[in-house]
C-alpha cells in the first residue's frame, strides 16, 4: 500500500532522534575509554575489510614505486640495512640503561615508568579531518585508554577508546587533546600542548620568562601516569608573546607525518 509522504517525514524525524541518541551513547562510552556495543559490532565486521583495503593500496603504491630506478632502490635498501644495524646497537644499550633505571626506582620505592613495553599496530583507517586513527589492536593486546601512540620517531597521539580488537587514537593535531610538553632546554620550558591543524600545534608555556627559541625540540614532559617523559613531538617554528595577558606560546611543527602514518607503536 502506498504511504503518504507525511509518514516519510515521521521516519526522517525518528531517524534523526535515533542519530542523536546513538551519538550521546557513543560520547559517554568514549569518556569512559570504551566503545559501545554497536561500535564494537561494526568494527569487528569492518576492520578486517579496512585492513584488506589498506593492504591493497600498499600493494598499489609498491607497484608504482617499482618504476623508480633500480639504483635508487638498491641505495635505499643498503641505507635501510645500515640504519637497522645502528638501531640494534642503540636498542641493546637502551635496554641495559632502562634495566638500571628500573632497579634504581625499585630501590627508591618509586612506581614503574610507563611506556616500557610496546605493541606494534597497523593503522587500518585514518580520518585526518576528525583527527582520528583506527588501530588494529585493542584490549586483547593490552591496549588501554590514555596510552601514547608513536611512529618511528615521534608522538602520533593518545588512545581515546578501546574495543576488543580495535582502538581509536586521537591525534596530537586534535584541538581537544591536551598533553604536558616541554621545550628541551636547560632548564626545560614546560607547558601545555594542544593541536590546531595537522601541521601546527600550540604549546602554551606556564612561565612567561622561560627561555625558548625557534627550532627547539618539544618533547612530552612526563607529568602523566601513562605518557612517559621525552617522546619527541615537534619543533618550535614561531613564538608569540602577549605581555598584557602575561601569556607566551609557541607554534610547533609536528615531527610525525600525521597524514600518512601506516604503522605505529602503542606504548604500555
Amino acid at each position, binding site marked *: 500500500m502506498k504511504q503518504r509522504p507525511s509518514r516519510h517525514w515521521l521516519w526522517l524525524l525518528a531517524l534523526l532522534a535515533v542519530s542523536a541518541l546513538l551519538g550521546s551513547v557513543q560520547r559517554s562510552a568514549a569518556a569512559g575509554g570504551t566503545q559501545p556495543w554497536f561500535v564494537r559490532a561494526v568494527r569487528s565486521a*569492518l576492520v578486517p575489510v579496512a585492513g584488506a583495503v589498506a593492504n591493497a593500496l600498499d600493494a598499489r603504491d609498491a607497484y608504482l614505486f617499482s618504476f623508480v630506478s633500480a639504483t635508487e632502490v638498491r641505495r635505499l635498501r643498503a641505507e635501510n640495512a645500515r640504519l637497522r644495524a645502528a638501531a640494534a646497537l642503540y636498542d641493546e644499550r637502551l635496554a641495559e640503561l632502562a634495566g638500571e633505571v628500573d632497579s634504581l626506582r625499585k630501590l627508591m620505592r618509586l612506581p614503574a615508568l610507563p611506556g616500557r613495553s610496546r605493541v606494534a599496530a597497523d593503522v587500518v583507517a585514518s580520518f585526518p*579531518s576528525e583527527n582520528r586513527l583506527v588501530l588494529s589492536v585493542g584490549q586483547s593486546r593490552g591496549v588501554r585508554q590514555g596510552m601514547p601512540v608513536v611512529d618511528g620517531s615521534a608522538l602520533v597521539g593518545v588512545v581515546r577508546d578501546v574495543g576488543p580488537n580495535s582502538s581509536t587514537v586521537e591525534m596530537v593535531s586534535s584541538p581537544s587533546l591536551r598533553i604536558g610538553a616541554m621545550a628541551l632546554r636547560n632548564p626545560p620550558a614546560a607547558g601545555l600542548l594542544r593541536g590546531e591543524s595537522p601541521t601546527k600545534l600550540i604549546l602554551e608555556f606556564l612561565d612567561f620568562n622561560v627561555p625558548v627559541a625557534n627550532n627547539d625540540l618539544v618533547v612530552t614532559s612526563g607529568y602523566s601516569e601513562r605518557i612517559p617523559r621525552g617522546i619527541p613531538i615537534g619543533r618550535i617554528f614561531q613564538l608569540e608573546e602577549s605581555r598584557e595577558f602575561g601569556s607566551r606560546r609557541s607554534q610547533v611543527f609536528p615531527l610525525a607525518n600525521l597524514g600518512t602514518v601506516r604503522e605505529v607503536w602503542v606504548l604500555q
Partner: protein
Amino acid sequence: MRKRGGLTGWGGIVVAALLLGFSAALQGQAHRLAVLGAEADYPLLVACTLALFETSKGGAVLGFLGGFLQGCMAGTSLGYVAFSRTIAGYLAARSREWIGPGLPTAVGVVFACTAIASILELFLPPAKAVFPSLGDTIGTATYNGVLAIPLYALLNRFFKPARP
C-alpha cells in the same frame, strides 16, 4: 525486480549492505585516493546513489545507515554524521521524486546532497574553520558527483527507481 521498484527483496538489501559496508571501510583510506587534494566521501556517495532508487523513507534509512557505519568506524561524532547523512539521503530520494530519474539527475543530486551534508556538518560540533572546509566541501561534492556516474549506471542495470 518487483513492480514497486527500489532496493526490494533480499538482493537489494544485500547489495545495499555490502556497498555501504565496503564504502565505510574504504573511507579510512580516502586520503590516499585523493585527486588534486579532493577526497571522496564514499559512504555518502553510496547512500545518496542508492537513495535515488528508493522512496524518501528508504533514502533516509540509507543515509542513516551510511552515517552510522562511518561514525562507528571513525569513532567520533557518530550522532552528527548520522544526522547529516539521514537528511542527505532523504533529500536525495525526494529530489529524484521531484526531478525524475536519469544520469544527469544522479550527478546533480549526489553533488548537491554531498554539499548539503558537508555544510550541515560544518555547523555541528566540533567547530571547524569555515572557509578551508568550504573548499574541501566543493572538492568532495565534485568527486562524489563524478563517481556517481559509474555507480548509478551500474545500479541502474539491476534496480528500478521506486514509485513515490
